[in-house]
């Protein structure tokens, strides 16, 4: 993959989209093969690699007891991006959570919680985004917004791997689609990035 690339992972349920994303994020060890970042195996890079990726999985990573504002500031802080109250407010406003940012996340709807999780994309400064079922439970407007955000990221030379069944309307320098069937085969897809 080169800067500006969008890779869409498709395939039936259980075909291994999430597993592949988790392997790329470094959360799971591949049975075979390796993932390379700038030519080096990510398992030997560890924290240096973590600094370059943002992974948003099935589970939102949003604490029910905390407000969207607190959630965003804390998760950004943990991900290595200290943001101010104002930056967090702006990101949430753009995600359409205005006036709800102080509400504990358990009072938000599923879609709003998803938006609150995705607000992280606006406050991070990473090269590679790994997004699992990113458009799930989002309405049309929010889905379009996320597509724009991903598009902007790609235009700035970022990369994204998105697992979804839905059609993505994103303009990218290079758009690839990887169809997974019956699990990841044992000859292991080798993914390599270079800049």
């Amino acid at each position, binding site marked *: 993959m080169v800067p500006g690339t969008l890779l869409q992972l498709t395939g039936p349920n259980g075909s291994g989209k999430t597993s592949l994303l988790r392997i790329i994020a470094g959360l799971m060890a591949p049975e075979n093969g390796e993932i390379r970042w700038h030519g080096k195996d990510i398992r030997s890079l560890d*924290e240096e690699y973590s600094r370059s990726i943002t992974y948003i999985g*099935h589970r939102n*990573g949003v*604490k029910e*007891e*905390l407000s969207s504002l607190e959630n965003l500031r804390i998760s950004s802080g*943990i*991900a*290595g*991006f200290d943001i101010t109250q104002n930056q967090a407010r702006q990101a949430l406003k753009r995600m359409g959570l205005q006036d709800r940012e102080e509400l504990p996340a358990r009072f938000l709807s599923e879609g709003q919680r998803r938006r609150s999780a995705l607000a992280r994309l606006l406050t991070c400064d990473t090269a590679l985004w790994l997004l699992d079922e990113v458009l799930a439970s989002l309405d049309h407007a929010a889905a379009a917004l996320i597509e724009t955000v991903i598009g902007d990221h790609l235009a700035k030379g970022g990369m994204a791997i998105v697992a979804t069944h839905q059609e993505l309307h994103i303009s990218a320098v290079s758009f690839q689609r990887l169809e997974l069937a019956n699990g990841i085969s044992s000859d292991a897809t080798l993914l390599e990035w270079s800049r």
Partner: protein
Amino acid sequence: MRAPSTFSMFRWIVKRDLMLAWRRRADVLSTLFFFVIVASLFPLGIGPETHLLRSIAPGVVWVAALLASMLSLGRIFANDYQDGTLEQMLLSPQPLYLIVLGKVLAQWLVSELPLVIIAPLVGVQFGLSGETLLVLFISLLIGTPVLSLIGAIGAGLTLGLRGGGVLIALLILPLYIPVLIFGSGAVDASIMGVEVMANIYLLLALLVLGTVFAPWAAAAAVKISLE
């Protein structure tokens, strides 16, 4: 957006867990009440036999503290595991060792420190003298962080398992034995009027060992559980 220091991330972790504990006060209070009630049942059950009470006090208070700490252990990682925030922590550019250390510190502050503070009050029911109460307080102050540190390993290993609570107890309680022996030993020594510092130093040694190795082991356990 500036790149934060390791310390700033550590602060975020501790602050976050303290905030969460504050929003779930009932959980924290239940641990404290459990400790007070269990330790108070003995004087009530045995009756006003001062001599007997005084001799069982160190063991009873320490065992009650041990069991109370078991109650809160599951919460160190389990909730974060369920909502996916633990995954995000694993992807943090900071060492997992520090994240675990931060979480253990927060857990100790909310679940164990109140217990340490109230322990002298519980000790009064056993007819302990002022000096012995102080030793009890100090031994718990040094010993309970070790319980949290060891407990984090068990919590990490049993992440995502059904019936993890019982398994944690089986895994961790044997490892608590040294802390129990030295902790109650210090209080015992004080009651008998002999030197208490030997036991206190041993507890301190356990604390140092625990701080160095336990977060590292717990971090490895969490990583394995999430794969």
